[in-house]
């Protein structure tokens, strides 16, 4: 789908846990899992739009899952049905579904499950793919709409042990059983998992979150270091092969 700038109306915006909201916008969207939109529901301030991944898409709407962390997401959280919102997208490369064959593990940390939900939905339609889902949270889980009740293997860990194992999900996750790992979460989590996968010789795809200005590949503020030089996480990513990336940590 060609990326567009769209002015639309909020379909629904609901709090689903302490600081996490789910926002839907009416319309028909053709999007790859792992792609994102630049959202804007304000006029002047903050200056920039906010990159948010696609959490789900159906025939009549697109859904985002977001964590309220600052001014932009705070404004999003106050949206009510019918309010104006603008979207630029879909943006980014998204996950390459052709790479995801055999036994695939999706590993999400916190709000990182947002894009994995839609990836799961797409993958589970493909034959020859067995998907398992591994999600870590600080406390109460969220964002598993497409997964819960459908996924044959769902592991959850929470730091406060309120659901599932106690602690970090990657401590309960063993890459070697899989053909491919996909991870989206805090950079420190992705970096640790990349090492684990490297050691196990299992390829991993990660979705990078860098601060963005344009979101469309023009300004070069969102680059990450790869073995092939600096790449734009908005246009060349956000999905990168772990083996390409050079993370600081």
């Amino acid at each position, binding site marked *: 789908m060609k990326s*567009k700038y769209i002015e639309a109306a909020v379909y629904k915006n609901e709090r689903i846990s302490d600081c996490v909201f789910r926002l839907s916008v009416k319309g028909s969207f053709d999007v790859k899992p792992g792609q994102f939109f630049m959202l804007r529901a304000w006029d*002047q301030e903050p200056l920039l739009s906010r990159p948010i991944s696609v959490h789900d898409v159906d025939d009549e709407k697109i859904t985002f899952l977001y964590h309220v962390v600052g001014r932009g997401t705070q404004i999003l959280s106050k949206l009510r049905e019918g309010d104006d919102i*603008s979207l630029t997208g879909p943006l980014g490369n998204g996950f390459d579904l052709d790479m995801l064959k055999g036994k695939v593990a999706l590993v999400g940390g916190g709000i990182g499950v947002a894009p994995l939900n839609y990836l799961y939905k797409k993958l589970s339609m493909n034959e020859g793919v067995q998907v398992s889902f591994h999600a870590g949270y600080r406390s109460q889980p969220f964002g598993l709409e497409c997964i819960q009740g459908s996924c044959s293997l769902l592991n959850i860990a929470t730091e406060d042990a309120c659901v599932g194992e106690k602690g970090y999900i990657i401590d309960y996750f063993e890459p070697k059983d899989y053909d491919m790992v996909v991870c989206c979460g805090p950079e420190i989590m992705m970096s640790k998992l990349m090492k684990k996968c490297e050691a196990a010789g299992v390829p991993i795809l990660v979705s990078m979150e860098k601060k963005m*200005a344009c979101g469309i590949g023009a*300004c070069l503020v969102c680059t990450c270091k790869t073995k092939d030089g600096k790449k734009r996480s908005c246009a060349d990513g956000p999905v990168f092969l772990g083996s390409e990336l050079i993370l600081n940590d």
Partner: protein
Amino acid sequence: MTSVNICGVELKNPVIAASGTFGFGGEFSDYFDVSRLGGISSKGLTLAPKQGNDGVRMHEVRSGMMNSVGLQNPGVEAFIKDELPQMEKMNTAVIANLGGSTIEDYVKAAAMLDKSSIDILELNISCPNVKEGGMAFGIKSCVAYEVVGEVRKATSKPLMVKLSPNAEDICDMAINCCKAGADAISLVNTFKGIAIDIKSRKPVFENISAGVSGPAIKPMALRMVYEVCGCVDVPVVGMGGISTYEDAIEFIMAGSHAIQVGTANFIKPDICLDIIEGIEAFMAREGIKSLEEIRGIIK
């Protein structure tokens, strides 16, 4: 009639996409017909390819942003080979923005661009993000005089020199650049600013300072453009925080021949089109036949 003439190059309208904010133009063609633009100033080029700065490259501030990209670019040669052919097809004036950290590099790169099809060479003597040299050229007018003079010798393309708002004396700077052979002046580049992460107790940027752009800088940028228009005879291309057609008209009334739109491209990818159409509507409403009628009218 929105058309304007900048050092012999006819622009359809005075709205140019600013360097570093519009890539090489291709990224925006999904969102609007970029041939509607008066021109596109390329991402800042350097003689050799550059990977740019490490660490955080962007920080949002009130009504603005700070960037420390550090001139990441494929180098002039790759630009001419890989990017320019596409830019030519965009049917708008192609401006090559050239940065550098030594006079030799500037001159070599200018000579290469001289043989290419670009319409205007925009000499960026102001990028504050490259540690060595980059800043100094744009601060002291005697240093600027030297680099502009050397580049002038290396090219017969229309030469537009882009000034830094951090110059000690913006008028003196503009005058010296003209004396050294500039055919036009563009300004402003980003303002030098800093930001501190109070949690980590460290500067946000590895280079400590970074360039501030966006609506926050507009009043200062407009003042500098007004002052420069009053002290040079060459065309002036004003910029700094323009995000509406009203802003653009202000810069024109201050004396700008054309204007550039930078950071605002990130607010809405087709904002340049809004600005162009806004200018057209304003002219129609006010019965303005040519922008000349209002250019510098506040003087």
